[in-house]
Structure formats: C-alpha cells, structure tokens
C-alpha cells in the first residue's frame, strides 16, 4: 500500500468516526417529541350543549359564595421519580405569567382554574425542569413520560386520585395553545407543564414548553 493510499484511508476513517459521533450526539439530544396530540385536543373541545331547555332558568340573585375547590397538595409520578409538594399559585403581576414556585423541588397548581373535584376543564400543574442556581427541578424528566404511564394527585381532602397519561407534546413557547391548557371546559384532565427544547444560554431560556396531558383513571 502506498503512502498516498494510506493517507486517503486515514481520512476516510476519520470522516466516518466524526459522522458517527455526530449522529450519536444528535440521537441523544432528540427533542421530547409529541405523542397523543390529537387526543389532547379532543379532550379540550367542550361537550355539545343540550338542546335548549323549554323553560327559562331562574336563580336566586344571591351574592356568589366562596368556591368549593379541592387543591392538589401532592403529586406522585413513579415512572420518573417525582414526589413533589404542590403549592397553590397564581399570576406574576409583573410578567402576567404563571407563577411557578421558585423552589425547583416544588411545583405549582394554577389556583384560578379547576381543582381536583372539577367535572370539567383542565387542572394545571407546572414545575421547573431545572434552574441555574438550584440544579435539576421536579419536572426534569417530564419529557420521558409516555402514553399509559400513571400518576397520582392527592387533594387537600386527603383523597388520592389516579391519572393516566394520554399525551406528551412539545411546543415553541410562542406557539403553545395556552387557552386550551387553561380551559375550564371540556373533559376533566390534568395538565403538567415544564420547559424543554433547545436552551438559549444567552437569554437563559428554553425555547419550548413540554406539556403532558393525563385523564382520570
């Protein structure tokens, strides 16, 4: 074999090695991907309204009473090792965004939406995927959840309610249909949200949201 030939072979081998490494890295960094998107959107469509009632509904014009809502206080997802305390949270006044609890091992339930008792609508719980200061968050592995996985949400009434994952979706934050996930109508469902997708190190921001939809078992 000539020297020239050996050089060519070495180049070929190096090329193959580089491409193999690149392919491996690309596979390992696959986005979460989406499963069950259609099922999730079907859940959100409101139930068909019954044919208009023959008589006019009449109610006593009393001042609205305090809502009887059962907040989730604990969330268990064995599949991805989540055991987390759930806090009732609202809106950040400054940003108008969901007030995810600052402590990354705790997660937040959107207290303006339905509670666990609701017979319609989406119960929303969001948590950090990670934090620059505190490391991995409670929802670090949320994107590993798959259809059929189960989770348990315990309410303030002490009752544990089981849910089954029907969808996992990934959306750019600029395109995510938040109205659907924060809906108060449609089938009862539990919606888990965190961040994901490519990370912009300059802005310290993930591009996407990962959304897992589960229904009562």
């Amino acid at each position: 074999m000539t020297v020239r030939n050996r050089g060519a072979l070495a180049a070929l081998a190096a090329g193959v090695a580089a491409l193999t490494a690149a392919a491996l890295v690309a596979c390992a960094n696959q986005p979460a991907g989406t499963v069950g998107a259609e099922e999730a959107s079907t859940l959100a469509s409101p139930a068909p309204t019954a044919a208009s009632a023959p008589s006019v509904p009449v109610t006593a014009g009393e001042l609205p009473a305090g809502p009887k809502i059962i907040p989730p206080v604990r969330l268990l997802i064995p599949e991805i090792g989540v055991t987390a305390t759930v806090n009732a949270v609202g809106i950040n006044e400054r940003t108008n965004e969901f007030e995810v609890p600052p402590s990354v091992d705790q997660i937040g339930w959107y207290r303006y939406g339905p509670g666990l008792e609701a017979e319609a609508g989406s119960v929303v719980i969001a948590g950090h995927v990670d934090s620059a200061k505190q490391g991995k968050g409670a929802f670090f592995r949320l994107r590993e959840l798959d259809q059929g996985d189960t989770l348990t949400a315990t309410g303030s009434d002490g009752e544990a309610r089981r849910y089954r994952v029907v969808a996992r979706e990934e959306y750019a934050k600029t395109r995510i249909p938040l109205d659907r996930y924060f809906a108060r109508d449609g089938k009862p469902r539990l919606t888990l949200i965190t961040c994901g997708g490519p990370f912009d190190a300059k802005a310290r921001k993930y591009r996407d949201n990962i959304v897992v939809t589960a229904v009562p078992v």
Partner: protein
Amino acid sequence: MQLSYFRRVAAGGAVAALAFAGVGALTASPAYAATSKVSVVHGIPDTPVDVYVNGKKTLDNFKPGDVAGPLNLEEGDYDIALTKPGEPIGSAILTVDNAAVPGGANISIAAHLDAAGKPKITPFVNDVSKVDAGKARLIVRHTAAAPAVDVRAGGTPVFEGLTNPNEAKGDVDAGEVKADVVLAGTDTVAIGPADLNLKEGTATIVYAIGSAEGKTLDVVAQTITGLHSAPGGVPSGDGGQAGTGVDTWWYVLTGAGVLLLLGGGVRMATARTGRK
C-alpha cells in the same frame, strides 16, 4: 394594593346605562351574530310578576331578587309586559313596547324602581370582554329608589356618586372583598356590609334594589362566567441542563466528517487511476 387599583379603575368606570337604541351602535355586531343573551333581573320589592314577551308568558310568578336567563333572543324588537301573577296581559303593571334587542350582545333587563320609587325597566349591556389572568370584573348598578351612593370596599370608596339608573365597573384582583354601600359622601351605610367573592375570570354584577324610604334596600347579584384568559406563559427553567437539539460544534464536526470522507475518497480514486 388591591384598593388603590380598585380606585384607579373606578375613576374611569362610571358608565351610564344605555338605552336600547344606543346598544346597537355600540356593539356593532357582525352579521352572523344574530342572537343575544338576555337575562332578566327582578328588583321591585314585594311584587312577584308574570313576564310576557311579545304577548307570550315567558316567566311565571317571577319573584323579587331573582334572576332569569340567559335567554337566547334573536335580534329584533320585543314587547315586554309585567303583570301581577295570574292576571291578564291587559292589566299589566308595566309595559315596554318595541324594545330593540341588538345581535350578538349580552344584556340584562332590570325591572326596578326609579329614584322616585316608580317601577320601570332599564336595559343594561353587560361587559363580557375577557379579563386578564388573575382578575375579576365587578359591576355595580344603582337600581334602587335611593339618592346617589358610594360603593366601598374594605371601608374605602371605590365607586363614588353612583345614581339611578347607572352602573360603575372595574377589573380588580380576584378574591374576597368586604363591600358596603353608603349615601354619597357620607358614612351612612345603606346596604351591607357583605363579603363579595369575586371569582377569577367572571363578572359579578351587583344591583342595589328596593327603596330607602320603604326600608327595603337590598342587593341582587348576577354572575357571568367564562371571561378568563390564560397566563402569558409558563417560564419553568433557566438551567439549561435539559436542553435538546445540537450546538454549533456539532455542525463543525459533521462538516469536517463529510470533507474528510470526500477528500479521502477522491485521493483513493486518483491513486488507483495513477497506478494504472
């Protein structure tokens, strides 16, 4: 915090009740929105009535303090008549002919006393625009035989100098607030205090009804749901450990791999040709 906000919105919030004619111009409904949601509020003390719409009995023995509806009514003109329960429409105690219901609006028709204590019917257009996430809308309507009033929350006036038959409104932080109604500019409580639970994403409409002279002042409340908005976003990570997708170096590596393969291949080919 909530109170100061309250006051700010109240300043611009006092809005006159709109005549039906004005309603049409304001809502400027698109052609396809032909029906309106119409509720009826009974604010005349001690006077249960039957309600007739276009000569047809629509509400039977409708009691003071009750709210009926919402009804879906086609855009058009309606004759409304109130009779004592069981009495024929000919002996109606109150009639409104050719009340124009515009398309695509949400309306409350209040049967109430005017400032002098005479029964009348006033239509109100309900603001059903979305409220921001975390907020609730409070609308107060003066439909009582009483002078001008202030509405206070936690002892501080939020709507001032409200007169019959007008409304004041504002979007406030959702939650509970202790409210009362005082004679304008005084601390003389006319109604309340009462705990108002303002649920997020709803409009709570409170009508002051009855008569100050007759000592029948009271409130009727109507709630409109479904006005909520989603939060602006869900920011839930700034660590970057879970980032997916590939960085710039990946493209460099891939590019180098391709070049090496091509280069090696060409060299190999030319080497073989050279030997021949």
